[in-house]
């Protein structure tokens, strides 16, 4: 029994002893110990050749290849997202032809291995030697000889990766749009918004909350999928360069470590970006107000109380 009267306690902030978690502490210690042992083993194992790793990590050939990999990733992802949104909207449109085309595209590009698709893109200039657009037996509007693209394996890689990605993005965007309550579109329409306004102002921002996490996944996955562009064959990317240099150093292990370090570095940057995007599009999703928002609300309340008095 406390000696204090109960009504004394009423307005005092609670200062309780936090609950202890002995199980959590013990398991954390074990894991940290195992991690330490692994790091020690790695540092002392000569197979890793840390001196070679250090020499090549910032080698210009490697850093230039890393930038190329990043460009491949970003450009392919841009194509993937733009085309993916288009495919998703087509899939949800009332027009049966658009719906079927979208379905067929996704069916094909999701259903075949990306490696096979990349080999195909590498051969495309031998399959289609010219592209002609015009009326049969009539005037010709466009004539392109594909031989001018034959050397441009970089762009073939971007297109190949981008088209494959768009099939996955289409499904992600479609799931996002479908997750938004129908009443939202209806309320926007009742306010006199056009289909475009309702979609861009009301539906897509809410769909983003569902779209962004798997898209971040796709982006990181794309960063690593770029290592498949040797299929085209394109060899300027990070993984191909690291492999070439491994021939020079007679040991693939340190070069694999160098490449992995760069992949991890880019992935980390992308994850930071994803965190801020998620926070931006998550606004209003939870009852919990941000501290800044609580301040403005409290200030408004105070102002209001004064006005009443």
């Amino acid at each position, binding site marked *: 029994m406390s000696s204090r009267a109960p009504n004394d306690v009423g307005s005092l902030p609670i200062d309780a002893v936090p609950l202890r978690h002995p199980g959590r502490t013990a398991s954390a210690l074990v894991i940290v110990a195992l991690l330490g042992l692994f790091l020690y083993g790695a540092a002392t194992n000569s197979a890793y050749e840390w001196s070679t790793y250090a020499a090549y990590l910032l080698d210009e050939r490697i850093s230039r290849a890393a930038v190329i990999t990043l460009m491949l990733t970003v450009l392919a992802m841009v194509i993937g997202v733009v085309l993916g949104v288009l495919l998703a909207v087509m899939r949800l449109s009332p027009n049966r032809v658009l719906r079927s085309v979208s379905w067929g595209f996704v069916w094909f590009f999701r259903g075949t291995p990306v490696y096979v698709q990349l080999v195909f893109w590498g051969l495309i200039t031998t399959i289609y030697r010219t592209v002609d657009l015009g009326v049969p037996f009539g005037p010709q509007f466009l004539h392109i000889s594909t031989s001018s693209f034959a050397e441009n394996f970089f762009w073939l890689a971007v297109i190949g990766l981008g088209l494959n990605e768009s099939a996955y993005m289409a499904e992600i965007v479609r799931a996002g749009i479908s997750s938004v309550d129908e009443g939202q579109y209806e309320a926007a329409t009742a306010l006199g918004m056009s289909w475009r306004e309702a979609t861009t102002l009301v539906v897509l*921002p809410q769909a983003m909350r569902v779209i962004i996490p798997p898209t971040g996944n796709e982006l990181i996955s794309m960063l690593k999928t770029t290592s498949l562009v040797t299929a085209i064959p394109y060899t300027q990317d990070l993984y191909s360069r690291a492999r070439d240099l491994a021939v020079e150093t007679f040991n693939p292990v340190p070069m694999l470590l160098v490449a992995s370090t760069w992949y991890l570095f880019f992935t980390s940057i992308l994850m930071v970006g994803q965190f801020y995007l998620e926070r931006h599009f998550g606004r209003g999703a939870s*009852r919990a*107000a941000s501290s800044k928002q609580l301040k403005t609300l409290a200030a408004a*309340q105070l102002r209001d109380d004064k006005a009443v008095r």
Partner: protein
Amino acid sequence: MTLRDSLPSATAQAASPMVVSEGVHKRFGALEVLKGVTLSVNAGEVMCLVGPSGSGKSTFLRCINHLEQISAGRLYVDGELVGYRQRGDRLFEMHPKDAARQRRQIGMVFQRFNLFPHMTALENIVAAPVKDQGRRREAAIEQGRDLLKQVGLSDKADAYPAQLSGGQQQRVAIARALAMEPKLMLFDEPTSALDPELVGEVLDVMRALADKGMTMIVVTHEMGFAREVADSLVFMDDGVVVEAGNPREVLANPTHARTRAFLSKVL
């Protein structure tokens, strides 16, 4: 001297019909939901629409706003055909742009509020005026704050819908509809999703709106509100108007058996 000044009296002006429904039918495939609804609401009047579940009340409201396309009959708002353009005796489907323009003159309040969850209360209110009517943002924000004050929520401008109570959300939704400066307000069971103690605050806002002369069609189960505020009460069942008249008279002496059966359940 303007035309308005030369009108005989305010009552004569008020007696012009705002909504005219002539034999409106609505079919969903083979299912006929509205089977010839005929009624009219004068400018400045409040009409309460009651009836059992599934009788077509929501569908009728949605037709007035052209969220649904009617299958037969004619529907006019402020003398203008809803959703169609008439040339000679042929009807032409309206361009979505014109349909949107028509909808801007009609405010709609939903049972489940349908506020935009990713926008604050104030952003919910200014979004449409800024986008559709190209109003200046500052002017729209000023008007938005004013509307929030009218519905008693000036302190909640920066709150997101998830942080508001049901009654507060519905009052924001009413303010949002009013921001378009509509000629007509449609309410579809605005208090049905609310806890009993929150119903009053929403009805108070609606009552104030009626007092200001807003033309309103209200689907509701709040017979007290109908008795006090409405100019007319319409009882709908199975897609047709069964009985219509002065709310006090209809509630006290319903002439049709179906009306009597329904009222005995809700009163």
